[in-house]
């Protein structure tokens, strides 16, 4: 939190400087404006907080890649309409670079307008399939993952763990269906059943009874946010954990959800791209810095935002803070020359990541805290199924 006042003072200072210097020198000191639309209110607001804080952690004295930047942060209340409104307003006022959006449906609303206005969008969380295939765009980058990747990695994980019969559970909406499709794409065993839960469901006793009676080797479930906490708590309470292991994608149990789930999280397997336990210097430094700055453990969302900020920083550096040099900026982004906390990172032909995925397990560490430990790497230099359909001009 200490960085905020400094940032503001600097920003004010630079604005004053440019005002005095006049328009002719505007390019030099003028900060690059970054439209940062994210979800800060609503129950999902904690994700937005982590995204914002992770991003700001990467900024040094209000600068990214030595270029002064000005984050224009706006809450979308998880309403696509609000987000679009905010994005269009910013685009009209001259913002050329956008990021921050946290949910696929919000992203779907924001991106087309941004691209039409000639701006760049760098996604720090969702990577929906819509923009990964035919509708890929040269100004649209995803620095996190393609949405299906975690589920495909989970399918690979299930293969590694030797499960033959897996039961699938997900909420009855698009992301839920995509999740199960992704899992089935890579899983080689038999599907014992697919259960679609209600969108606003909080109690899963009925579904747990069905799992018990079907007796699969394991279950794969995708319930983000509160529903994920509910599911894990009730799963543990039902005693099923002892007989039927649970496999999830990482965002069904992030660092903050562990806090709210408690012991019930112990023993859950998850597919992941990064966890706090990942063994590389950049990651360790990031976790420590984040804890120091905000006195809490970063979630994967914070890590993704941090990496995204550094990616943007690397590109800003390459163009000397002049985002007007569009082609150069784009090329620099594409090169992705920065040290990613998650390890190896590069862009595929559709400007979505090619990276490694892991099988992880929630288990107690030496001091008795539950952390997400790395079990093994299940996918190396893994891209996505949509890249082939992308024809970038």
């Amino acid at each position: 939190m200490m960085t905020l006042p400094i940032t503001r003072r600097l920003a004010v200072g630079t604005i004053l400087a440019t005002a005095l210097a006049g328009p002719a020198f505007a390019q030099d000191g003028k900060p690059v404006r970054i439209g940062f639309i994210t979800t800060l209110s609503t129950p999902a607001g904690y994700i937005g907080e982590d995204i914002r804080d992770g991003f700001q952690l990467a900024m040094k004295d209000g600068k990214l890649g030595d270029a002064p930047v000005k984050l224009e942060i706006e809450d979308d209340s998880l309403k696509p309409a609000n987000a679009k409104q905010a994005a269009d307003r910013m685009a009209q006022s001259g913002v050329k670079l956008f990021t921050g959006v946290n949910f696929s449906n919000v992203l779907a609303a924001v991106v087309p307008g941004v691209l039409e206005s000639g701006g760049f969008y760098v996604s720090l969380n969702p990577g929906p399939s819509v923009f990964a295939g035919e509708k890929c765009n040269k100004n649209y980058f995803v620095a996190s993952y393609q949405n299906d990747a975690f589920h495909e990695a989970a399918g690979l994980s299930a293969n590694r763990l030797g499960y033959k019969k897996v039961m699938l559970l997900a909420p009855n909406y698009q992301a839920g269906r995509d999740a199960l499709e992704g899992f089935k794409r890579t899983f080689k065993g038999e599907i014992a059943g697919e259960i679609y839960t209600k969108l606003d469901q909080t109690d899963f006793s009925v579904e747990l009874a069905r799992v018990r009676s079907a007796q699969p080797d394991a279950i794969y479930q995708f319930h983000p946010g509160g529903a994920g906490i509910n599911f894990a708590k009730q799963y543990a309470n039902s005693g099923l954990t002892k007989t039927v292991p649970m496999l999830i994608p990482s965002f069904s149990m992030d660092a903050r959800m562990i806090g709210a789930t408690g012991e019930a999280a112990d023993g859950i397997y998850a597919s992941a791209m990064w966890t706090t336990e990942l063994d590389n210097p950049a990651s360790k430094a990031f976790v420590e810095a984040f804890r120091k700055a905000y006195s809490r453990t970063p979630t994967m969302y914070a890590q993704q935002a941090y990496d995204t900020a550094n990616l943007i920083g690397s590109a800003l550096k390459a163009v000397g803070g002049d985002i007007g040099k569009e082609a150069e900026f784009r090329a620099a982004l594409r090169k992705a020359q920065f040290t990613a906390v998650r390890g190896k990172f590069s862009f595929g032909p559709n400007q979505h990541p090619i990276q490694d995925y892991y099988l992880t397990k929630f288990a107690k560490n030496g001091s008795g805290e539950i952390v997400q430990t790395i079990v093994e790497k299940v996918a190396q230099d893994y891209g996505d199924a949509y890249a082939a359909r992308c024809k970038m001009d």
Partner: protein
Amino acid sequence: MILLIEQLLNGLQYGAMLFMLASGLTLIFGIMGVINLTHGCFYMVGAYCAAFVVLQTGSFLLGALAALAGAGLYAVAVELAVVQWLYRRDHLYQVLATLGLILFTNEAVSLIFGRRPPLMDIPPFLQGSVPVLPGLEYPVIRLAFIGMGALVALGLWLLVNHSRVGMLVRAGADDREMVSALGIDIRRLYTLVFGLGGVLCGLAGVMAAPLLAIEIGMGERVLITTFVVIVIGGVGSVRGALVGALLVGMVDSLGRAYIPQLLQLSLPPSVADTLGAGLVSASIYVLMALVLLVRPLGLLPARS
């Protein structure tokens, strides 16, 4: 067969939880004629108070007391500050005023307790499962839920039918002027009933907290279902709320358990899944629409 019994128990448990929420709401509506959308917030406030106190003291019992007190007091505060001015107003204004209160409560709770959902573990004496039938183990906490629901039903029955307060409550529902003429302060009676509704929400909140994520917006998620319950049961009637809660609990649970499978027997899997999931989501609304079409005032209305 075992599975069916287990699913019936699940339905019963869900019904018990809905009844705790619906009984207070239906009393408030029946006696004072107020549509109170804030009711779900009381439940959320109860859960947050419980989690907070349990985190500080480690005692589930204290947490439970905090939930009842917190939710009850908040309900009284809401009644005194806002709802008491709405008794003789059109439903429209009640909906709007309490909608505003929902926004306020949610944001206030997130400012006070933060956005991070707090943890509340299942207390040791409610952990684990016990055999109910040979081959059927059922979680203790869910059984406790059912038991608590039955206790609340019994308590309310005694209160409404066999106590002075209950007599006033029934008289108040029938004839406001009469009660006032008897020299009873109807204002205090209303506040009391409102507080009671809040306490029942707090009870549901503390019972649900170990099983659920305690988060902003958890109130609205149950609110609409609770309204469905009281409308099906007949607004204003505690008996109706009980019948409605059990009916909705059963239809929802059994629907989730069996509708997809039944559809799979006759349709291709992909169609069955989509259709099944959609049908399951809308099942209680379909139930409500059907009930209202046959009996526009619900199954057991307080006054016909």
